[in-house]
């Protein structure tokens, strides 16, 4: 032990380039913050700087794409399929969010520089959540993300709703973080390590098997909160409704994907099934079962509650809960994979699902932002009455996003669903099959409220005056990206999936049948 430590001190395995994308985003954040403090009343400079930073980061990320899975920083950072595919999703989300926010920034007096800096720091946190191969890094990434989003949710300082949203998110978020942290502490206690690769090795022979289980449970609470699974979803609708719409979009898509990335890393790669070892078997069985039940509940509660909403933002919030449930189907499929290839394919499927969900949902939120006007005043279903033929471009685009959320074939949403359901079906397990059936039933239920928006737009009379808003350039760009994304991922998804299907760092895999 000591010799290894010493060796590390003399010749540390740092591998700096591995965190280059993260560093660039952080640096851009700092630059934006500094620029903003010297030139405070600027409108679009920080946005442009942020976009450039994100693009450079993406460039370095893509240039790493063909490297073999590797670790750096003494095993704390992993660069593998999971990291690369999720990180590219984060960068995309962040960039599109900046484009969407321009509308909001124009309408209201928002400290735009601060906002961009926060967004970049949040992105930085998310990136570490995907690349962290150590509980410390994951915790830091998660907190960086959370703290930035707490502020972003409350950025509309004078608005009661925004205030309340930030307050609720802050209190409940840190409450859930405490659970996550406790879980991490117990896992550390049970295995003697915080490194996920080492934890995976140690699961076969933990020092305190019972603590391992309790720790796992606590971490489910923490991550479950972030991805908004029932019963830890309660904060979602309120916070999403109250936060400014672009921030909601970012939270619904970005935070959720980031949480999935860490969730996958810790549970699928950290708690593998090792045949013949009781502790590992119990841990695996209990988390798979618990998450399956949670997934079914999540989909159902999200969808049923969404039906009854009269506010589009709130409806989308519940829909995001339901989508977390669908993504969990793929997650559990990854947990039940029979070999490494299947596992990595399932992880790629979840990443792909988040990508499809990201383009779809960001697009939908972009339009909600535009139509919401100042302070998101116009977000009720009534406000969408009859706009179909007055602003056909917007209405048809929004309809496309709704159909993609619903999962109509040839849209991204459909491909995402196919991808995540497949691993669960391949597991040939009763519980997982039931889960897929529940997901299919839920998809049918969800038609009701997604189509309702389309119906409202095209088949309702407008009672009040309404002028189609001018679509600003930045928003046009955002819509173009998302529409093309929805269609491209729906029709030619093959290439993307192939790119995502890279092997992960986790090497512990001894397939076995469950007792």
């Amino acid at each position, binding site marked *: 032990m000591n010799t290894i430590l010493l060796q590390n001190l003399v010749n540390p395995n740092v591998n700096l380039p591995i965190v280059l994308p993260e560093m660039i985003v952080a640096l851009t954040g700092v630059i934006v913050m500094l620029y903003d403090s010297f030139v405070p009343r600027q409108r679009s400079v920080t946005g442009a700087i942020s976009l450039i930073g994100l693009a450079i980061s993406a460039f370095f990320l893509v240039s790493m794409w063909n490297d073999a899975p590797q670790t750096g920083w003494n095993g704390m950072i992993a660069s593998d399929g999971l990291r690369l595919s999720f990180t590219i999703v984060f960068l995309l989300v962040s960039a599109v969010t900046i484009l969407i926010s321009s509308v909001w920034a124009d309408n209201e007096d928002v400290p735009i520089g601060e906002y961009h800096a926060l967004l970049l720091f949040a992105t930085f946190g998310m990136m570490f959540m995907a690349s962290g191969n150590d509980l410390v890094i994951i*915790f830091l990434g998660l907190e960086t993300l959370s703290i930035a989003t*707490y502020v972003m949710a409350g950025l509309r300082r004078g608005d009661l709703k925004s*205030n*309340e949203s930030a307050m609720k998110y802050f209190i409940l978020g840190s*409450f859930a973080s405490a659970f996550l*942290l406790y879980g991490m502490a117990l896992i550390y206690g049970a295995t003697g390590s915080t490194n996920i690769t080492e934890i995976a090795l140690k699961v076969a022979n933990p020092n305190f098997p019972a603590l391992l289980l309790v720790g796992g449970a606590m971490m489910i609470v923490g991550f479950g909160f972030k991805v908004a699974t029932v019963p830890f979803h309660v904060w979602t*609708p*309120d916070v999403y409704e109250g936060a400014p719409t672009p921030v909601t979009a970012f939270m619904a898509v970005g935070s959720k994907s980031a949480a999935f990335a860490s969730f996958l890393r810790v549970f699928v790669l950290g708690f593998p099934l090792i045949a013949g070892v009781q502790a590992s078997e119990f841990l695996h069985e209990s988390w798979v079962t618990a998450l399956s039940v949670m997934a079914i509940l999540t989909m159902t509660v999200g969808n049923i509650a969404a039906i009854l909403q009269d506010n589009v933002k709130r409806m989308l919030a519940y829909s995001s809960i339901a989508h977390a449930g669908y993504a969990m189907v793929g997650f559990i499929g990854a947990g039940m994979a029979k070999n490494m290839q299947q596992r990595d394919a399932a992880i790629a499927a979840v990443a792909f699902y988040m990508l499809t969900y990201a383009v779809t949902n960001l697009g939908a939120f972009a339009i909600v932002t535009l139509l919401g006007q100042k302070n998101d005043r116009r977000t009720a279903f009534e406000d969408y009455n009859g706009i179909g033929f007055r602003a056909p471009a917007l209405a048809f685009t929004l309809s496309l996003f709704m159909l993609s959320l619903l999962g109509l074939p040839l849209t991204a949403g459909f491909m995402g669903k196919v991808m995540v359901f497949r691993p669960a079906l391949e597991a040939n397990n009763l519980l997982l099959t039931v889960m897929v059936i529940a997901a299919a039933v839920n998809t049918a239920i969800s038609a009701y409220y997604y189509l309702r928006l389309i119906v409202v737009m095209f088949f309702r009379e407008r009672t009040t005056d309404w002028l189609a808003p001018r679509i600003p350039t930045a928003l046009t760009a955002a819509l173009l990206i998302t529409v093309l994304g929805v269609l491209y991922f729906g029709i030619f998804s093959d290439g993307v999936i192939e790119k995502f299907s890279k092997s992960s760092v986790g090497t512990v895999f001894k397939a076995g049948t469950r007792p």
Partner: protein
Amino acid sequence: MEPSLASYLALSGILFTIGAVGVIFKRNAIGMFMCIELMLNAVNLTFVAFSRYYADVTGQLFVFMVMSVAAAEAAVGLGIIISFFRNRVSVDVDDASILKN
């Protein structure tokens, strides 16, 4: 006699529970936040206890991270609470209930 690992764990568990229950029963936003801090510190205790048990610095390192994160969280949290107070002249979280259903 030096207390055993189990007693440290028990203490931290009790502190954590007190914190969690406190979050539910405190109405004052600052009070709730303090309870959350209590939960975090309970966790720190666990980390330190295990760190000592394994004679491994990782746990203590983790504690440093948690403390700095908690400080950042406090800064942001208090900012949010102040902003809330300015709008409502109250720090009672029960007043924050216009978003529901």
